[in-house]
């Protein structure tokens, strides 16, 4: 049982005194995401911290951290007396597949004949590499504010899928990171017990990825239409078509 954070594994018989002096405050953040970003940048000058704005009405902006500094930053956020983000509520995996971005560049080619310059449209297909992302929602139980949202991105979706585990900082990430490992295939380094959580151990795929193809078990689909019909077509029997018709009125 070694290897985990000492805080989490103190003897069960030692109970610190249960005393909390909490004051009710509004659930909004004590500092804005920008302020936190600025403070982190001064504290960790080597770290790359990007503010990811949220365009929706919720307007909860998030901070994209680089993988190497993430554990230190996380520990700082947890212990910082201003923020005290002691509670990691939610850990989510998000799959961003490779995307082909079609750009149209217009170049004006001067007409050799001397007429007005011709505009030639040139399509460029740029492949934006995808990534796997882990999103952490942090709150503070001590100061009763939140959420601060952290994001970590892998380098790609194929081989460089490693991220540092934040389980040593917040034990709450334990099962959730395992779930992300299971369903998205992000490998969390220094996770104390990184096994599949929901699927069986022999399972090879990562089903929550957007490009996952489900096993073919569409043998009986009397109401198939749309996408399901495409998949069930191979199994269409006279019965499945006949049952729809039923007796003629």
């Amino acid at each position: 049982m070694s290897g985990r954070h000492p805080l989490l594994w103190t003897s069960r018989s030692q109970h610190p005194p249960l005393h909390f002096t909490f004051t009710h405050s509004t659930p909004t953040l004590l500092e804005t995401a920008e302020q936190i970003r600025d403070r982190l940048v001064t504290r960790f000058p080597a770290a790359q911290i990007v503010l990811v704005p949220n365009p929706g009405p919720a307007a909860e902006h998030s901070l994209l951290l680089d993988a190497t500094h993430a554990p230190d930053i996380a520990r700082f956020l947890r212990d910082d007396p201003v923020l005290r983000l002691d509670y990691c509520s939610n850990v989510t995996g998000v799959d961003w597949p490779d995307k082909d971005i079609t750009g149209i560049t217009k170049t004006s080619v001067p007409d050799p004949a001397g007429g007005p310059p011709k505009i030639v449209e040139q399509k460029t297909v740029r492949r934006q590499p995808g990534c796997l992302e882990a999103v952490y929602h942090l709150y503070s139980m001590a100061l009763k504010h939140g959420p601060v949202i952290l994001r970590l991105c892998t380098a790609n979706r194929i081989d460089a899928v490693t991220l540092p585990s934040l389980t040593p900082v917040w034990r709450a990430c334990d099962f959730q990171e395992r779930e992300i490992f299971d369903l998205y295939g992000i490998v969390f380094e220094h996770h104390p017990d990184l096994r599949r959580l929901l699927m069986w151990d022999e399972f090879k795929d990562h089903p929550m990825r957007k490009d996952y193809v489900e096993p073919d078990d569409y043998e009986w689909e009397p109401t198939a239409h749309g996408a399901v019909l495409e998949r069930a077509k191979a199994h269409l029997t006279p019965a499945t078509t006949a049952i729809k018709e039923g007796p003629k009125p």
Partner: protein
Amino acid sequence: MEMSDPAVTPAPFPAAGNITDAEREELRRHGILLTSLEELYNWGRSNSIWPLQFGLACCAIEMIAAATARFDIARFGAEIFRPSPRQADLMIVSGTVTKKMAPQVVRLWNQMPEPKYCIAMGACAISGGPFKQGYNVLKGIDRFIPVDIYIPGCPPRPEALLHGLIQLQAQIKGEKLTGPDAARHTRPEEPSEFPVPEYGAHDLEPPHNPDVWSPPAALDKP
């Protein structure tokens, strides 16, 4: 007039396992001794159906509700939910069977002594139900074990479960010990255990048991 009398109202669904009085008379003519033995045997079994205490998902709560004061499955002698499959007569598959759970369900079924019956309670147990599009959801427990009664609903009311139980009782009461249409458990060639599927790299292996599950290929509807 608040309630439909199931016997009077023409149900839109065909009822299962009903035995008419005429058929019962026919039974009698087969031989008084055998028939009365058969009736005693079937009476005992149909009035003492002990289900396996085994809940999978949402429907399990309604299964428990069927055992509670309002619905009281005990009236049919079926409140003794045995936690060990060795003493159970009926497996109520109540809820979604996931692919991860399917081998365990089949194993439990194999561990039950004959004669045993299976009720698929709720849409998920019948066909995967609303979750059938899921990658880890088995599209019906009848892919691996034979099911006697299907109770649709999501979840079925406890009364629907009781209705299914009454259907099963009727089915048991109509079972024969000998002859060409003898009950399944009396025929030695019928398997009592079924192969347990294994966890594969992408799916269960095999994904269904073709000896048990075969959707109709062609339809000859009346």
